[in-house]
C-alpha cells in the first residue's frame, strides 16, 4: 500500500516530464504516426491515473490494506459518520486533492467540449450566411477571401470543409484534390476527438510540460496521418506543392475590417487573443510535415511497432493493476 503510492507518484512524475520530453524529441513518430498517437494517449491516461491513484492510495493507507478496502472504510466515514480519527492531516489532504483533481479533470473536459461546440456552432452559422456551396461535393463550401485557406469544421453529419477563393485560384485540380482528401481524412478519422481531449488535458494542467508537448505532438501527428491518406491517391509532389502554396500564402496576416469590438463576439476578453498571430506551437508542424515528405524515411519495422504498442498497453495496465489487483487478492 505504502510502496504502491510511492511507485505511482514516481510514475506520474516520469510521465509528466522526462518521458514526454524524450518522446517529443524522438524522430520515429514521423515514421509511425499512428503508433505515436496511441503512445501519447497512453501517457496522458496513465499519467492522470497514477497522479490521482498515488494520492488516493497514500490517503487511504491507514484505513485499508488495499484501495478497495480503503475506499469501503472511507465510504463508511462519509456516509455513516464513522470516526475519522485514523486519518491524519496529510491523509485527508491527499484524499481531498485526489477528489479535487478528478473533478477538475472531468469538469475541464466537459467545459472544453461546451466551449468548442459553441465556437463551432457560431462558425457554422456564419458559414451558412457567407459561404457558397462548391462543386467538389456536399459538405464542401467556398468562402470569398483572397488568402489561400482550407480547413474543416467537424460536427458529425454537419461537418463541413471550407475552401477560400484564394485557394481555388492558387491550386491546380490535383493539388486541390489532395487538400480535400487531407481534410476529409481529419473528419473521417475523427481527429476532432483527439484535438478536444488533448486541448482539455492542456487546459486542465497548463503548467505540466507533458500537456503542452502532448498537444503540440498530437496536432502534428494528425496532420501526418491525414497526409498519409492523401498520399494513397495523390503524388508526393502534388501534396508538397499544395502545402507549400498554402503555407506561403497564409503567412500574411489577415486584414481586419473595422475596429475591433464592433461585433458582439469581441466583447469577451478571451477573444482578444484572436488578433495575435503565430502561436508558438504550430510553425514546426508545417516544417516537419514538409521535411517528412521531402526526405521520407521507411515506416517503422513491425517489431518496433509492436514494442510501442506493448509499451502503451503496459503504461495503462501497470497503474490500473496496482490500484485494483491487491483488492482482489486480499
Amino acid at each position: 500500500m505504502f510502496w504502491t503510492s510511492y511507485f505511482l507518484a514516481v510514475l506520474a512524475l516520469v510521465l509528466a516530464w522526462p518521458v514526454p520530453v524524450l518522446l517529443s524529441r524522438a524522430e520515429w513518430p514521423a515514421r509511425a504516426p499512428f503508433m505515436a498517437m496511441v503512445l501519447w494517449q497512453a501517457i496522458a491516461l496513465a499519467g492522470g491515473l497514477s497522479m490521482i491513484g498515488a494520492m488516493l492510495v497514500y490517503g487511504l493507507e491507514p484505513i485499508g490494506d488495499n484501495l478497495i478496502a480503503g475506499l469501503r472504510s472511507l465510504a463508511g466515514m462519509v456516509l455513516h459518520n464513522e470516526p475519522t480519527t485514523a486519518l491524519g492531516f496529510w491523509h485527508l489532504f491527499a484524499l481531498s486533492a485526489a477528489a479535487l483533481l478528478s473533478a477538475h479533470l472531468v469538469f475541464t473536459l466537459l467545459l472544453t467540449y461546451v466551449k468548442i461546440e459553441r465556437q463551432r456552432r457560431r462558425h457554422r452559422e456564419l458559414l451558412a450566411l457567407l459561404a457558397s456551396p462548391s462543386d467538389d461535393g456536399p459538405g464542401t463550401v467556398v468562402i470569398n477571401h483572397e488568402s489561400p485557406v482550407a480547413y474543416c469544421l467537424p460536427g458529425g453529419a454537419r461537418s463541413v470543409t471550407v475552401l477560400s477563393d484564394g485557394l481555388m485560384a492558387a491550386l491546380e485540380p490535383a493539388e486541390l484534390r489532395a487538400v480535400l482528401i487531407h481534410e476529409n481524412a481529419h473528419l473521417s478519422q475523427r481527429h476532432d476527438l483527439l484535438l478536444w481531449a488533448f486541448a482539455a488535458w492542456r487546459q486542465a494542467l497548463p503548467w505540466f510540460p507533458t500537456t503542452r508537448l502532448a498537444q503540440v505532438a498530437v496536432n502534428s501527428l494528425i496532420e501526418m496521418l491525414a497526409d498519409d491518406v492523401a498520399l494513397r491517391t495523390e503524388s508526393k509532389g502534388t501534396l508538397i506543392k499544395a502545402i507549400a502554396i498554402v503555407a506561403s500564402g497564409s503567412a500574411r496576416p489577415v486584414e481586419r475590417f473595422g475596429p475591433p469590438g464592433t461585433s458582439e463576439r469581441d466583447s469577451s476578453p478571451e477573444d482578444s487573443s484572436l488578433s495575435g498571430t503565430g502561436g508558438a506551437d504550430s510553425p514546426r508542424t508545417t516544417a516537419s510535415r514538409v521535411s517528412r515528405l521531402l526526405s521520407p524515411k521507411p515506416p517503422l519495422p513491425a517489431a518496433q511497432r509492436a514494442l510501442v504498442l506493448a509499451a502503451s498497453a503496459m503504461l495503462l495496465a501497470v497503474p490500473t493493476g496496482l490500484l485494483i489487483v491487491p483488492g482482489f487478492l486480499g
Partner: protein
Amino acid sequence: MASLGELERAVMDLLWAGQEAATANKLRDLLAQDSAATDGIAGHQGKDLAVTTVLTVLSRLEKKGLVERERGTRPHRYQAVSSRADHTADLMHEALGSAPDREAVLARFIGSVSESEAATLRKLLGKN
C-alpha cells in the same frame, strides 16, 4: 416555402447590400422582387411570403447577434450589426489565427506559418 436557413441568407444579403436600415415590409417586398426576377419556377418566396415570416427570420438573426433593431421607431427598422467583409474576416481569423484555446475548433490544412518559414517554402516552390 423556402427554408428558414435560405431566408436568413437572403435577408442578410439584402441587409449587407443595402446602405440603411430596412423594415420587415420593405425586406419582404425586396425578397419578392428578387425571387420574381431570378426565376418564376422556383419562385416559392414570391407573394405568398408573409411579413410574419420575415419577422421570424429577423428575430432569429437578432438572437444570433447578426442583426440589430432600431429602437424607438415603429415599424421597427433592422440593420446588419457588421458588414459581410467583417464577418468573413472574423471567420478567417478563426481559421488562420492560432490562439491556443481555438486550436481544437477546426482542423486547418496548414497551421500558422512564420514569415521565415513561408520564405523558405516560397524558395522551394521556385525550384519546382
